[in-house]
């Protein structure tokens, strides 16, 4: 996995960046989970749809990813019952399970408001390193001091 920071100075710049990269799969506060599906089904839906896997095989893949990041307890919860952390993990795994070339995490501070998110993100993405290709983090320059290693 190749983790890259994409710093933006304002919202207009962020929007322009997103418009310039329409092929990246977004993990964003603006793109919610399907509210009437569990976390497991939200993640399993992608291989079920894209690779025509039957539900059990797709759910097994989703379950193994959830176990790997230590969030199997959230598997059967739906969006309104999730903590910020669980919701973020669900969105990230929904993006990751299809192994897209680029995953773009948009404004992680909005997705994880209750966490010191830079080290959390690094640890989480590190645990998924072999299932991810490029992962770009889109954050504002004023949050740069929060990322001591970047």
């Amino acid at each position, binding site marked *: 996995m190749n983790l890259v920071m994409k710093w933006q100075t304002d919202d207009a710049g962020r929007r322009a960046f997103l418009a310039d990269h329409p092929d990246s*799969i*977004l993990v964003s506060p*603006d*793109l*919610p*989970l*399907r*509210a*009437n599906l569990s976390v497991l089904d939200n993640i399993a*839906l*992608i291989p*079920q*749809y*894209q690779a*025509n*896997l*039957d*539900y059990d095989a*797709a759910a097994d893949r989703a379950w193994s990813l959830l176990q790997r990041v230590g969030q199997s307890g959230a598997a059967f919860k739906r969006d309104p019952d999730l903590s910020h952390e669980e919701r973020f993990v669900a969105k990230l795994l*929904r*993006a990751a399970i*299809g192994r*897209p070339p680029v995953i773009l995490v948009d404004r992680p501070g909005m997705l994880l408001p209750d966490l010191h998110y830079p080290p959390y993100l690094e640890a989480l993405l590190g645990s998924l390193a072999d299932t991810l290709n490029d992962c770009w983090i889109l954050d504002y320059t004023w949050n740069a001091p929060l990322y001591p290693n970047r």
Partner: protein
Amino acid sequence: MALLAPFLIRRGAALLATWRIWRDTLRFAGRATVTAATPSAYNSATRTVVMKQIYFTAWQILPGFTLFAALLSFVLIQIVVTTAAKFGLSDYALEVSMRLLVLELLPLITALFVALRSGSAINTEVALMKIQGEIEALEDAGVDTLRLELMPRVIGGMISVLALTALTSVLALVLAYLAVYGLQWWSFPDFTRVMGKVFDTPVLAGILLKSLAFGLAVTVIPVAEGMATPRKLFMAPISVLRGMVRLFFALMLIEVASLAFKYI
């Protein structure tokens, strides 16, 4: 003139808005039909949504709706049989009750019931998906929402309307036999002769077409209305209200067109 101009502009804008939503509905109906007729559009995920739709639309309501349809059919058959006997027209009682129930009332009542129960739910769900950005999120994740979320609802709804209409019609046939001939089997040839006269090939094709049109309307109109909802939460109830009113008029229009085609 100063008063007339703003009035005409307002009416014109309202007319254009109505025209646009009907145009979008027809466009969506066309796209959903083409997608549904494409074998490659079906995969494990779409089949799951179709099955869920059939479960929620037809299977869950089966006992209650069947009981209601049986009760209604029994009462109407009894009214027709008693009235026909009073006027010395008992020979026509079976034919009249079948024309009334199977050709006209049961398909319409089934469509109205499915519209109230599932059409409103589909309209609300799609409107909320649109408002909250769930459609956009799925598209971003590489999922074609027409294939995964919308077309399977149309297919599931159509299958449900057809299945419920067929089931309640068969039930009405059984009840009509019992009401006219009683609990015995030797009048079965007479019964089948009358049924053969009522349900000839053009009539059967007509019922099938009408039920298909009902099934298409009860799913396509709520989905199209939901997709046309602006991304504002307060618009959700307005979307459902509009969708249900348009659906009611569409169902009535199909029924009137079918009656006019048959009897005028």
